[in-house]
Protein backbone atom coordinates (compact mmCIF):
# COMPACT_ATOMS: atom_id res chain seq x y z
CA UNK A 1 0.00 0.00 0.00
CA UNK A 2 1.27 3.44 -0.86
CA UNK A 3 2.27 5.16 2.34
CA UNK A 4 0.93 8.60 1.36
CA UNK A 5 -1.40 9.62 4.15
CA UNK A 6 -4.45 11.85 3.93
CA UNK A 7 -7.14 12.92 6.37
CA UNK A 8 -10.90 13.24 6.30
CA UNK A 9 -13.47 13.87 9.02
CA UNK A 10 -16.13 11.60 10.43
CA UNK A 11 -18.77 13.38 12.50
CA UNK A 12 -16.18 16.10 13.01
CA UNK A 13 -13.39 13.75 14.15
CA UNK A 14 -10.22 13.63 12.04
CA UNK A 15 -9.61 10.19 10.55
CA UNK A 16 -6.28 9.19 8.96
CA UNK A 17 -6.29 7.18 5.74
CA UNK A 18 -3.84 5.89 3.20
CA UNK A 19 -4.39 6.89 -0.41
CA UNK A 20 -6.58 4.29 -2.09
CA UNK A 21 -8.31 3.14 1.07
CA UNK A 22 -12.06 3.27 1.25
CA UNK A 23 -13.77 5.44 3.85
CA UNK A 24 -15.10 2.29 5.48
CA UNK A 25 -11.70 0.63 5.68
CA UNK A 26 -10.08 3.75 7.14
CA UNK A 27 -12.85 4.02 9.75
CA UNK A 28 -12.53 0.34 10.64
CA UNK A 29 -8.80 0.85 11.13
CA UNK A 30 -9.72 3.27 13.95
CA UNK A 31 -12.11 0.65 15.36
CA UNK A 32 -15.19 2.53 14.13
CA UNK A 33 -17.51 -0.39 13.37
CA UNK A 34 -20.86 1.44 13.36
CA UNK A 35 -21.58 3.70 10.44
CA UNK A 36 -25.29 4.39 10.60
CA UNK A 37 -28.60 3.74 12.31
CA UNK A 38 -31.40 2.02 10.42
CA UNK A 39 -34.47 4.04 9.61
CA UNK A 40 -37.21 2.01 11.28
CA UNK A 41 -35.61 0.35 14.31
CA UNK A 42 -32.62 2.67 14.76
CA UNK A 43 -30.25 -0.33 14.85
CA UNK A 44 -26.55 0.17 14.27
CA UNK A 45 -25.06 -1.12 11.03
CA UNK A 46 -21.53 -1.26 9.68
CA UNK A 47 -19.64 -2.98 6.89
CA UNK A 48 -21.19 -6.33 6.00
CA UNK A 49 -20.27 -7.59 2.54
CA UNK A 50 -17.37 -5.21 2.05
CA UNK A 51 -17.65 -5.19 -1.74
CA UNK A 52 -20.51 -2.80 -2.46
CA UNK A 53 -23.33 -5.30 -2.86
CA UNK A 54 -25.27 -5.12 0.41
CA UNK A 55 -25.66 -1.32 0.86
CA UNK A 56 -25.41 -1.67 4.63
CA UNK A 57 -22.34 0.53 5.14
CA UNK A 58 -24.18 3.74 4.22
CA UNK A 59 -22.71 7.05 5.24
CA UNK A 60 -23.29 10.66 4.29
CA UNK A 61 -20.42 12.02 2.19
CA UNK A 62 -20.21 15.78 1.65
CA UNK A 63 -23.94 16.06 2.25
CA UNK A 64 -25.05 13.22 -0.04
CA UNK A 65 -26.79 10.27 1.64
CA UNK A 66 -26.69 6.55 0.83
CA UNK A 67 -22.98 6.40 -0.01
CA UNK A 68 -21.33 3.01 0.44
CA UNK A 69 -18.37 3.47 2.76
CA UNK A 70 -16.71 0.25 1.58
CA UNK A 71 -16.27 1.46 -2.00
CA UNK A 72 -16.01 5.26 -1.71
CA UNK A 73 -12.34 6.17 -1.73
CA UNK A 74 -11.28 8.45 1.10
CA UNK A 75 -10.23 11.85 -0.23
CA UNK A 76 -8.47 14.68 1.63
CA UNK A 77 -10.95 16.96 3.39
CA UNK A 78 -13.95 14.72 2.75
CA UNK A 79 -16.76 15.33 5.24
CA UNK A 80 -18.27 12.02 6.26
CA UNK A 81 -21.12 11.64 8.74
CA UNK A 82 -23.15 8.83 10.27
CA UNK A 83 -26.36 8.37 8.40
CA UNK A 84 -29.38 8.50 10.67
CA UNK A 85 -32.06 6.49 8.91
CA UNK A 86 -32.23 8.14 5.52
CA UNK A 87 -31.05 11.47 6.85
CA UNK A 88 -27.79 13.22 7.20
Amino acid at each position, binding site marked *: MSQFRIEFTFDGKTIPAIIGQSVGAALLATNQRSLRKTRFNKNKRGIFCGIGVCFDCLVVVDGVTNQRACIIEAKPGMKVQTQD*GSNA
Partner: protein
Amino acid sequence: MKNPDAIVIGAGVVGACTALALSNAGLKVLVIDRGPVASGTTGAGEGNILVSDKEPSAELTLAIRSRDAWFEIDTDIGGGFELEAKGGVVVSRSTKGISDLKKLASLQKVNGVETIELDESSLQEAEPFISKDISYGVLYPGDAQCQPMLAAAQIIRAVRKRGGSFIQGENVVKINSVSGSIIGLTTDKNTYSTPVVINATGTWAGEVAKLANSFLPILPRRGFILVTSPAPKIIYHKVYDADYVANVASGEADLQSSAVVEGTASGTILIGASRERVGFKNDLNIAILRQLARQAISLFPVLSTIQLLRAYRGFRPYAPDHLPVIGEDENISGLWHAAGHEGAGIGLAPATGELITAQITGATPFMDPAPFSPKRFKGGEYVAI
Protein backbone atom coordinates in the same frame (compact mmCIF):
# COMPACT_ATOMS: atom_id res chain seq x y z
CA MET B 1 -68.15 -21.84 -0.95
CA LYS B 2 -70.41 -23.31 -3.60
CA ASN B 3 -73.46 -21.04 -3.40
CA PRO B 4 -72.33 -17.57 -2.50
CA ASP B 5 -74.73 -14.62 -2.51
CA ALA B 6 -72.29 -12.83 -4.79
CA ILE B 7 -69.05 -13.54 -6.61
CA VAL B 8 -66.56 -10.76 -7.17
CA ILE B 9 -64.11 -11.44 -10.00
CA GLY B 10 -60.88 -9.57 -9.27
CA ALA B 11 -58.99 -9.18 -6.00
CA GLY B 12 -57.60 -5.77 -6.73
CA VAL B 13 -58.57 -2.75 -4.66
CA VAL B 14 -61.96 -2.29 -6.36
CA GLY B 15 -62.88 -5.96 -6.01
CA ALA B 16 -61.71 -6.00 -2.41
CA CYS B 17 -63.68 -2.88 -1.42
CA THR B 18 -66.77 -4.19 -3.19
CA ALA B 19 -66.47 -7.52 -1.41
CA LEU B 20 -66.08 -5.74 1.92
CA ALA B 21 -69.13 -3.54 1.37
CA LEU B 22 -71.20 -6.58 0.37
CA SER B 23 -69.94 -8.55 3.37
CA ASN B 24 -70.78 -5.74 5.73
CA ALA B 25 -74.30 -5.68 4.22
CA GLY B 26 -74.69 -9.32 5.24
CA LEU B 27 -73.98 -11.13 1.97
CA LYS B 28 -71.83 -14.24 1.68
CA VAL B 29 -69.16 -13.19 -0.79
CA LEU B 30 -66.70 -15.22 -2.82
CA VAL B 31 -63.78 -13.38 -4.43
CA ILE B 32 -62.01 -15.10 -7.31
CA ASP B 33 -58.77 -14.02 -8.96
CA ARG B 34 -56.59 -15.84 -11.46
CA GLY B 35 -53.58 -14.58 -9.49
CA PRO B 36 -52.69 -13.26 -6.05
CA VAL B 37 -54.36 -10.27 -4.40
CA ALA B 38 -53.44 -6.99 -6.14
CA SER B 39 -51.70 -8.76 -9.02
CA GLY B 40 -53.18 -6.38 -11.58
CA THR B 41 -53.11 -2.61 -11.72
CA THR B 42 -53.51 -2.26 -7.95
CA GLY B 43 -50.02 -3.67 -7.49
CA ALA B 44 -48.63 -0.93 -9.71
CA GLY B 45 -50.50 1.94 -8.09
CA GLU B 46 -49.05 4.81 -6.13
CA GLY B 47 -51.79 4.73 -3.55
CA ASN B 48 -53.42 8.05 -4.47
CA ILE B 49 -56.63 9.04 -2.72
CA LEU B 50 -57.34 12.41 -4.26
CA VAL B 51 -60.09 14.99 -4.20
CA SER B 52 -57.88 17.62 -5.76
CA ASP B 53 -57.66 16.38 -9.32
CA LYS B 54 -61.33 16.33 -10.28
CA GLU B 55 -63.54 19.07 -11.58
CA PRO B 56 -67.00 19.37 -10.03
CA SER B 57 -68.76 16.37 -11.51
CA ALA B 58 -70.20 13.04 -10.58
CA GLU B 59 -66.66 11.77 -10.27
CA LEU B 60 -65.78 14.46 -7.73
CA THR B 61 -68.82 13.52 -5.63
CA LEU B 62 -67.67 9.92 -5.80
CA ALA B 63 -64.14 10.93 -4.82
CA ILE B 64 -65.19 13.02 -1.83
CA ARG B 65 -67.28 10.21 -0.37
CA SER B 66 -64.64 7.62 -1.20
CA ARG B 67 -61.89 9.51 0.56
CA ASP B 68 -63.88 9.56 3.80
CA ALA B 69 -64.82 5.93 3.30
CA TRP B 70 -61.12 5.00 3.27
CA PHE B 71 -60.72 6.34 6.77
CA GLU B 72 -63.81 4.48 7.88
CA ILE B 73 -62.42 1.26 6.43
CA ASP B 74 -59.14 1.91 8.18
CA THR B 75 -60.93 2.02 11.52
CA ASP B 76 -63.26 -0.84 10.62
CA ILE B 77 -60.60 -3.40 9.71
CA GLY B 78 -57.82 -2.21 11.98
CA GLY B 79 -55.52 -0.45 9.52
CA GLY B 80 -52.32 -2.05 8.27
CA PHE B 81 -52.04 -0.26 4.93
CA GLU B 82 -50.18 2.97 5.72
CA LEU B 83 -53.17 5.27 5.24
CA GLU B 84 -52.04 8.83 5.68
CA ALA B 85 -54.01 12.10 5.47
CA LYS B 86 -51.00 13.86 4.05
CA GLY B 87 -52.71 16.44 1.87
CA GLY B 88 -51.95 17.46 -1.68
CA VAL B 89 -50.34 20.57 -3.10
CA VAL B 90 -51.02 21.49 -6.71
CA VAL B 91 -48.71 24.06 -8.26
CA SER B 92 -48.39 25.93 -11.48
CA ARG B 93 -45.74 28.16 -13.01
CA SER B 94 -47.46 29.73 -15.97
CA THR B 95 -49.86 32.65 -15.81
CA LYS B 96 -52.57 30.66 -17.57
CA GLY B 97 -51.89 27.65 -15.38
CA ILE B 98 -52.23 29.71 -12.25
CA SER B 99 -55.46 31.32 -13.35
CA ASP B 100 -56.94 27.94 -14.39
CA LEU B 101 -55.90 26.48 -11.06
CA LYS B 102 -57.53 29.36 -9.17
CA LYS B 103 -60.76 28.83 -11.08
CA LEU B 104 -60.77 25.09 -10.52
CA ALA B 105 -60.03 25.47 -6.82
CA SER B 106 -62.87 27.91 -6.25
CA LEU B 107 -65.32 25.63 -8.09
CA GLN B 108 -64.14 22.66 -6.07
CA LYS B 109 -64.50 24.66 -2.86
CA VAL B 110 -68.13 25.36 -3.63
CA ASN B 111 -68.61 21.63 -4.16
CA GLY B 112 -67.32 20.53 -0.81
CA VAL B 113 -63.56 20.26 -1.25
CA GLU B 114 -61.41 22.07 1.27
CA THR B 115 -58.87 24.26 -0.55
CA ILE B 116 -56.26 26.66 0.79
CA GLU B 117 -54.48 29.02 -1.56
CA LEU B 118 -50.74 29.26 -1.07
CA ASP B 119 -48.80 32.33 -2.04
CA GLU B 120 -45.04 32.21 -2.51
CA SER B 121 -44.13 32.31 1.16
CA SER B 122 -46.79 29.91 2.40
CA LEU B 123 -45.90 27.55 -0.43
CA GLN B 124 -42.27 27.60 0.71
CA GLU B 125 -43.44 26.90 4.22
CA ALA B 126 -45.60 23.98 3.15
CA GLU B 127 -42.88 22.57 0.89
CA PRO B 128 -39.46 23.95 1.91
CA PHE B 129 -37.63 22.20 -0.93
CA ILE B 130 -39.90 23.15 -3.78
CA SER B 131 -38.30 25.02 -6.64
CA LYS B 132 -37.94 28.70 -5.80
CA ASP B 133 -39.41 29.78 -9.14
CA ILE B 134 -42.86 28.46 -8.27
CA SER B 135 -44.96 31.18 -6.71
CA TYR B 136 -48.45 29.77 -6.45
CA GLY B 137 -50.11 26.61 -5.26
CA VAL B 138 -53.27 25.22 -3.72
CA LEU B 139 -53.25 22.95 -0.70
CA TYR B 140 -55.90 20.24 -0.50
CA PRO B 141 -55.94 18.87 3.06
CA GLY B 142 -58.35 16.15 1.93
CA ASP B 143 -55.85 14.33 -0.31
CA ALA B 144 -54.54 11.13 1.22
CA GLN B 145 -52.33 8.17 0.41
CA CYS B 146 -52.08 4.48 1.26
CA GLN B 147 -50.08 1.42 0.29
CA PRO B 148 -52.39 -0.15 -2.29
CA MET B 149 -51.19 -3.75 -2.18
CA LEU B 150 -51.47 -3.87 1.58
CA ALA B 151 -54.87 -2.17 1.38
CA ALA B 152 -56.28 -4.82 -0.96
CA ALA B 153 -54.69 -7.62 1.08
CA GLN B 154 -55.93 -6.33 4.44
CA ILE B 155 -59.43 -5.84 3.06
CA ILE B 156 -59.55 -9.36 1.61
CA ARG B 157 -58.32 -10.61 4.94
CA ALA B 158 -61.20 -8.82 6.67
CA VAL B 159 -63.68 -10.22 4.14
CA ARG B 160 -62.48 -13.73 4.95
CA LYS B 161 -62.74 -13.14 8.67
CA ARG B 162 -66.34 -12.01 8.17
CA GLY B 163 -67.39 -15.20 6.46
CA GLY B 164 -66.33 -14.46 2.89
CA SER B 165 -63.89 -16.51 0.83
CA PHE B 166 -61.04 -15.83 -1.52
CA ILE B 167 -59.94 -18.24 -4.23
CA GLN B 168 -56.64 -17.58 -5.96
CA GLY B 169 -55.48 -19.17 -9.19
CA GLU B 170 -58.77 -19.92 -10.91
CA ASN B 171 -59.40 -18.39 -14.31
CA VAL B 172 -63.02 -17.55 -15.17
CA VAL B 173 -63.88 -19.07 -18.57
CA LYS B 174 -67.61 -18.41 -18.73
CA ILE B 175 -70.16 -16.25 -16.94
CA ASN B 176 -73.45 -18.11 -17.06
CA SER B 177 -76.92 -16.65 -17.42
CA VAL B 178 -80.35 -17.94 -18.27
CA SER B 179 -83.12 -15.76 -19.74
CA GLY B 180 -81.05 -12.64 -19.17
CA SER B 181 -80.26 -13.36 -15.50
CA ILE B 182 -77.02 -14.49 -13.92
CA ILE B 183 -76.97 -18.02 -12.55
CA GLY B 184 -73.26 -18.37 -11.86
CA LEU B 185 -69.89 -18.76 -13.48
CA THR B 186 -67.41 -21.42 -14.56
CA THR B 187 -63.66 -21.34 -14.01
CA ASP B 188 -60.97 -23.63 -15.34
CA LYS B 189 -61.41 -25.68 -12.18
CA ASN B 190 -64.99 -25.35 -10.88
CA THR B 191 -68.50 -24.14 -11.50
CA TYR B 192 -70.24 -21.85 -9.01
CA SER B 193 -73.88 -20.88 -8.59
CA THR B 194 -74.80 -17.35 -7.67
CA PRO B 195 -77.34 -14.74 -8.67
CA VAL B 196 -74.82 -11.91 -8.57
CA VAL B 197 -71.48 -11.55 -10.35
CA ILE B 198 -69.37 -8.41 -10.11
CA ASN B 199 -66.78 -7.79 -12.78
CA ALA B 200 -63.98 -5.96 -10.98
CA THR B 201 -61.18 -6.96 -13.27
CA GLY B 202 -59.89 -3.51 -14.13
CA THR B 203 -57.84 -3.47 -17.31
CA TRP B 204 -59.24 -6.84 -18.31
CA ALA B 205 -62.88 -5.93 -17.67
CA GLY B 206 -63.65 -5.85 -21.39
CA GLU B 207 -62.37 -9.39 -21.87
CA VAL B 208 -64.30 -10.61 -18.85
CA ALA B 209 -67.49 -8.91 -20.07
CA LYS B 210 -67.14 -10.99 -23.24
CA LEU B 211 -67.29 -14.15 -21.12
CA ALA B 212 -70.87 -13.16 -20.37
CA ASN B 213 -71.50 -12.29 -24.02
CA SER B 214 -71.57 -8.67 -22.97
CA PHE B 215 -69.55 -5.63 -23.91
CA LEU B 216 -67.42 -3.12 -22.05
CA PRO B 217 -65.04 -0.72 -23.83
CA ILE B 218 -62.12 -0.68 -21.41
CA LEU B 219 -58.63 -0.10 -22.72
CA PRO B 220 -55.22 0.05 -21.01
CA ARG B 221 -53.20 3.21 -20.56
CA ARG B 222 -49.65 2.47 -19.51
CA GLY B 223 -47.93 4.39 -16.78
CA PHE B 224 -44.50 4.27 -15.20
CA ILE B 225 -43.50 5.09 -11.67
CA LEU B 226 -40.00 5.78 -10.46
CA VAL B 227 -39.10 4.70 -6.94
CA THR B 228 -36.12 6.27 -5.26
CA SER B 229 -33.80 4.93 -2.61
CA PRO B 230 -34.97 5.73 0.91
CA ALA B 231 -34.39 9.45 1.14
CA PRO B 232 -34.44 12.24 3.71
CA LYS B 233 -37.82 13.92 4.08
CA ILE B 234 -37.89 16.25 1.09
CA ILE B 235 -41.53 16.25 0.08
CA TYR B 236 -44.19 16.85 2.68
CA HIS B 237 -47.41 16.36 0.70
CA LYS B 238 -48.32 14.81 -2.57
CA VAL B 239 -47.19 17.52 -4.95
CA TYR B 240 -48.13 17.76 -8.57
CA ASP B 241 -48.15 20.09 -11.49
CA ALA B 242 -51.55 21.39 -12.56
CA ASP B 243 -50.93 19.92 -16.04
CA TYR B 244 -51.75 16.52 -14.49
CA VAL B 245 -55.48 17.18 -14.59
CA ALA B 246 -55.40 18.07 -18.27
CA ASN B 247 -53.48 14.89 -19.10
CA VAL B 248 -55.99 12.58 -17.45
CA ALA B 249 -58.75 14.04 -19.60
CA SER B 250 -56.66 13.98 -22.75
CA GLY B 251 -57.70 11.83 -25.63
CA GLU B 252 -54.33 11.78 -27.34
CA ALA B 253 -52.48 8.59 -27.99
CA ASP B 254 -49.00 10.03 -27.57
CA LEU B 255 -47.16 10.11 -24.36
CA GLN B 256 -48.59 12.43 -21.77
CA SER B 257 -46.53 13.11 -18.75
CA SER B 258 -46.48 15.61 -15.95
CA ALA B 259 -44.82 15.79 -12.59
CA VAL B 260 -46.34 14.02 -9.60
CA VAL B 261 -44.13 13.40 -6.59
CA GLU B 262 -44.62 12.23 -3.04
CA GLY B 263 -42.88 10.56 -0.16
CA THR B 264 -44.07 7.31 1.35
CA ALA B 265 -44.26 5.90 4.85
CA SER B 266 -41.25 3.73 4.08
CA GLY B 267 -39.05 6.67 3.08
CA THR B 268 -38.89 6.21 -0.67
CA ILE B 269 -40.11 8.92 -3.04
CA LEU B 270 -42.52 8.01 -5.82
CA ILE B 271 -42.36 9.91 -9.08
CA GLY B 272 -44.95 9.80 -11.82
CA ALA B 273 -46.87 10.24 -13.98
CA SER B 274 -46.94 9.11 -17.57
CA ARG B 275 -49.75 7.94 -19.78
CA GLU B 276 -49.34 6.12 -23.05
CA ARG B 277 -51.61 4.03 -25.19
CA VAL B 278 -49.40 1.15 -26.18
CA GLY B 279 -51.71 -1.72 -25.39
CA PHE B 280 -50.10 -4.09 -22.90
CA LYS B 281 -46.55 -3.50 -24.11
CA ASN B 282 -44.17 -4.67 -21.44
CA ASP B 283 -40.87 -2.96 -22.17
CA LEU B 284 -39.13 -0.40 -20.01
CA ASN B 285 -39.23 2.91 -21.84
CA ILE B 286 -36.01 4.63 -20.75
CA ALA B 287 -36.96 7.90 -22.45
CA ILE B 288 -40.02 8.13 -20.23
CA LEU B 289 -37.99 7.44 -17.11
CA ARG B 290 -35.72 10.35 -18.05
CA GLN B 291 -38.67 12.62 -18.70
CA LEU B 292 -40.20 11.79 -15.32
CA ALA B 293 -36.87 12.46 -13.62
CA ARG B 294 -36.54 15.83 -15.36
CA GLN B 295 -40.02 16.89 -14.37
CA ALA B 296 -39.53 15.87 -10.77
CA ILE B 297 -36.22 17.74 -10.53
CA SER B 298 -37.89 20.78 -12.03
CA LEU B 299 -40.32 20.76 -9.09
CA PHE B 300 -37.74 19.77 -6.46
CA PRO B 301 -34.16 20.54 -7.55
CA VAL B 302 -32.66 18.73 -4.58
CA LEU B 303 -33.93 15.43 -6.06
CA SER B 304 -30.97 15.59 -8.42
CA THR B 305 -28.72 13.74 -5.97
CA ILE B 306 -31.38 11.25 -4.89
CA GLN B 307 -31.01 7.88 -6.58
CA LEU B 308 -33.52 6.04 -8.71
CA LEU B 309 -33.73 2.56 -7.23
CA ARG B 310 -36.38 0.86 -9.30
CA ALA B 311 -39.13 1.59 -11.78
CA TYR B 312 -42.30 -0.25 -12.58
CA ARG B 313 -45.19 0.03 -14.96
CA GLY B 314 -48.87 -0.57 -14.70
CA PHE B 315 -51.85 -0.44 -17.03
CA ARG B 316 -54.63 1.91 -16.02
CA PRO B 317 -58.06 0.78 -17.23
CA TYR B 318 -60.10 3.52 -18.88
CA ALA B 319 -63.38 3.96 -20.72
CA PRO B 320 -63.70 6.29 -23.71
CA ASP B 321 -65.36 9.04 -21.66
CA HIS B 322 -62.80 8.71 -18.85
CA LEU B 323 -65.46 7.90 -16.28
CA PRO B 324 -65.46 4.68 -14.28
CA VAL B 325 -68.05 2.01 -14.99
CA ILE B 326 -70.16 1.23 -11.93
CA GLY B 327 -73.49 -0.46 -12.41
CA GLU B 328 -75.58 -3.30 -13.74
CA ASP B 329 -74.98 -4.71 -17.18
CA GLU B 330 -77.24 -3.41 -19.92
CA ASN B 331 -78.67 -6.82 -20.85
CA ILE B 332 -77.88 -9.27 -18.10
CA SER B 333 -79.43 -8.69 -14.72
CA GLY B 334 -77.27 -9.74 -11.84
CA LEU B 335 -74.08 -8.91 -13.71
CA TRP B 336 -72.45 -5.80 -12.30
CA HIS B 337 -69.39 -3.97 -13.57
CA ALA B 338 -66.99 -2.06 -11.31
CA ALA B 339 -64.03 -1.13 -13.46
CA GLY B 340 -62.33 1.51 -15.57
CA HIS B 341 -61.20 3.88 -12.85
CA GLU B 342 -58.18 5.05 -14.79
CA GLY B 343 -55.51 6.01 -12.33
CA ALA B 344 -58.06 6.81 -9.65
CA GLY B 345 -58.92 3.24 -8.80
CA ILE B 346 -57.50 3.27 -5.34
CA GLY B 347 -59.09 6.55 -4.38
CA LEU B 348 -62.51 5.64 -5.76
CA ALA B 349 -62.68 1.98 -4.70
CA PRO B 350 -64.61 2.25 -1.42
CA ALA B 351 -67.36 4.46 -2.85
CA THR B 352 -67.56 2.15 -5.86
CA GLY B 353 -68.16 -0.73 -3.49
CA GLU B 354 -70.85 1.27 -1.69
CA LEU B 355 -72.67 2.17 -4.91
CA ILE B 356 -72.66 -1.41 -6.14
CA THR B 357 -73.81 -2.74 -2.79
CA ALA B 358 -76.62 -0.21 -2.44
CA GLN B 359 -77.92 -1.04 -5.91
CA ILE B 360 -77.78 -4.79 -5.25
CA THR B 361 -79.44 -4.66 -1.84
CA GLY B 362 -81.97 -2.02 -2.81
CA ALA B 363 -80.70 0.52 -0.28
CA THR B 364 -80.50 4.21 -1.17
CA PRO B 365 -77.12 4.95 -2.76
CA PHE B 366 -75.28 8.02 -1.44
CA MET B 367 -75.43 9.56 -4.93
CA ASP B 368 -77.20 8.92 -8.23
CA PRO B 369 -75.11 6.22 -9.91
CA ALA B 370 -76.57 6.84 -13.38
CA PRO B 371 -73.51 8.72 -14.80
CA PHE B 372 -71.39 5.60 -14.25
CA SER B 373 -73.84 3.11 -15.65
CA PRO B 374 -72.53 0.69 -18.30
CA LYS B 375 -75.82 1.31 -20.14
CA ARG B 376 -74.12 4.38 -21.58
CA PHE B 377 -72.20 2.10 -23.92
CA LYS B 378 -75.37 0.90 -25.62
CA GLY B 379 -74.53 -2.13 -27.66
CA GLY B 380 -70.99 -1.15 -28.55
CA GLU B 381 -71.73 2.49 -29.22
CA TYR B 382 -71.01 5.14 -26.68
CA VAL B 383 -74.10 7.21 -25.90
CA ALA B 384 -73.78 10.24 -23.63
CA ILE B 385 -76.14 10.19 -20.67
